[in-house]
């Protein structure tokens, strides 16, 4: 147990480690007092509070922005499914079961993200509603919008993963949390797609569908893309069809693309 060794190791990755403490002298004075009192058992708690003071406030606003962006989409989805349930067009049985399960998850995501933003001392986004005038009257179109929202969610979370590298809330990796939401959105998307008699994954042809679906599958990187990290996927192995190559990877949408009026941005009240 060696506090000096800890600080030495920290200094290898964070040159400013000592600058983060109130002052170098204060740290060692307090440490000395702790040792003098023989309160060795209290040392872990002391070290914890020391580092909390030094690093506790360093969460960047970038991370809060990303979380509030995710929260905006979750609020939009939650309100959409609430409207869908309230409209009363979802057939009883399996369809109602599926929509209620998805709504339960979106509400859980809203709560989780709201609590996380609050814990990070940010102001969580509230009061995002699905535009009433855009809400479809018939069940088939409602499902098409559900597909658009879920596949948008999949693409949107993917687009932010890089901004969450190393982001933590306490001991929790925010990147991992985002990934754990992201794959649930993909499960939702797959099921909604099958409710619409579509393949659970995104075929290349979907990039050419009319709105509201088509724009979801376009953007700087369209869903019919076959180039991954500089590799032409159709030329791998003994060759793959462009359709399989496109469907094997879901693509990203940027924040600007998602919030554009042609996509989710145009569905917010």
């Amino acid at each position: 147990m060696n506090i000096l060794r800890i600080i030495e190791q920290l200094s290898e990755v964070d040159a400013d480690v000592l600058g983060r403490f109130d002052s170098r002298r204060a740290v060692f004075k307090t440490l000395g007092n702790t040792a003098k009192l023989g309160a060795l058992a209290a040392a872990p708690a002391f070290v914890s509070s020391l580092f909390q003071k030094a690093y506790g406030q360093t969460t960047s606003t970038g991370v809060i922005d990303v979380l509030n962006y995710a929260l905006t989409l979750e609020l939009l989805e939650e309100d959409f499914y609430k409207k869908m349930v309230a409209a009363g067009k979802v057939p009883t049985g399996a369809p109602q079961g599926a929509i209620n399960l998805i709504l339960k998850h979106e509400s859980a995501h809203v709560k989780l993200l709201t609590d996380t933003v609050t814990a990070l001392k940010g102001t969580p986004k509230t009061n995002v509603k699905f535009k009433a005038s855009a809400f479809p009257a018939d069940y088939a179109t409602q499902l098409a919008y559900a597909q658009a929202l879920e596949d948008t969610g999949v693409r949107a979370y993917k687009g932010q993963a890089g901004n969450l590298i190393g982001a933590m809330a306490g001991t929790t990796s925010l990147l991992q949390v985002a990934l754990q939401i992201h794959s649930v959105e993909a499960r939702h998307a797959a099921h909604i797609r099958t409710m619409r008699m579509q393949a659970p994954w995104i075929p290349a042809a979907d990039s050419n569908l009319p709105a509201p679906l088509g724009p979801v599958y376009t953007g700087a990187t369209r869903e019919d893309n076959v180039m991954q990290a500089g590799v032409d996927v159709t030329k791998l192995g003994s060759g793959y069809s462009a359709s399989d190559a496109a469907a094997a990877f879901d693509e990203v949408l940027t924040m600007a693309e998602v919030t554009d009026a042609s996509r989710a941005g145009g569905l917010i009240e």
Partner: protein
Amino acid sequence: MSNITKSGGDDAEFAKPLYTPIKRRSFFMYAGATAGATALLLSGCDDDDNNDSMTPGTVSLGSGDVGVLNYAYALEQLEAAFYAQVKATPAADFSAVEKDYFSQVAAHEAIHRDFLKAAINRDAPGKIIQDLTPVFSSIDFTKRASVLATAKTFEDLGVAAYNGAGKYLKTPAYLVVAGKIVSVEARHAAYVRDLIANGSFADDSIVDAATGLDKAMEPVDVINAAQSFIQQKIDASSVGK
């Protein structure tokens, strides 16, 4: 906050500080966490662990980003081999649509395998793991139910594996590609689950009812779960280190 990611990998997560050299990213796991303080102190000891020791005949996935890529490559090899067999000898009780969809899934998994192989060989020459030999003796490929049960295991495991490994990638481009793959695995998982029981695509057995989170598992736990399907002994202990 600490309970929002309750999932399979918690034990491994807590054990890790005992033998992991402290890095900036893992440091942030401890900052602000009283519970982590003891682990932090243990990490403060001199590094005397040695991850290079290897049992002969064991395939080590390696460390750093290439370790994570090899880990994904190992899992994709397994899935691709499984679906190639499903496609080659489809169960008699599969419908025509199911056969068509499973041949598409087979292509997706083969693409993931071949893509990872190409990326590892290009970016980390000489670091790729060997071709693995699948062990599918426990699977009855002539029975739809047996195939679906195994497919569900593989797909849910694959999703949890990518979800748990993303945080170990340091190169944003790799993270994005992993994200592009994992959502397709989740689509497969949902499809297979719905074939077994319609509506189970994201039921409470796989998605936490309170948090709405999918599972995330640590590499060692995933490999433990998959080991019986692979002839070679896989060592995932240094993935993410």
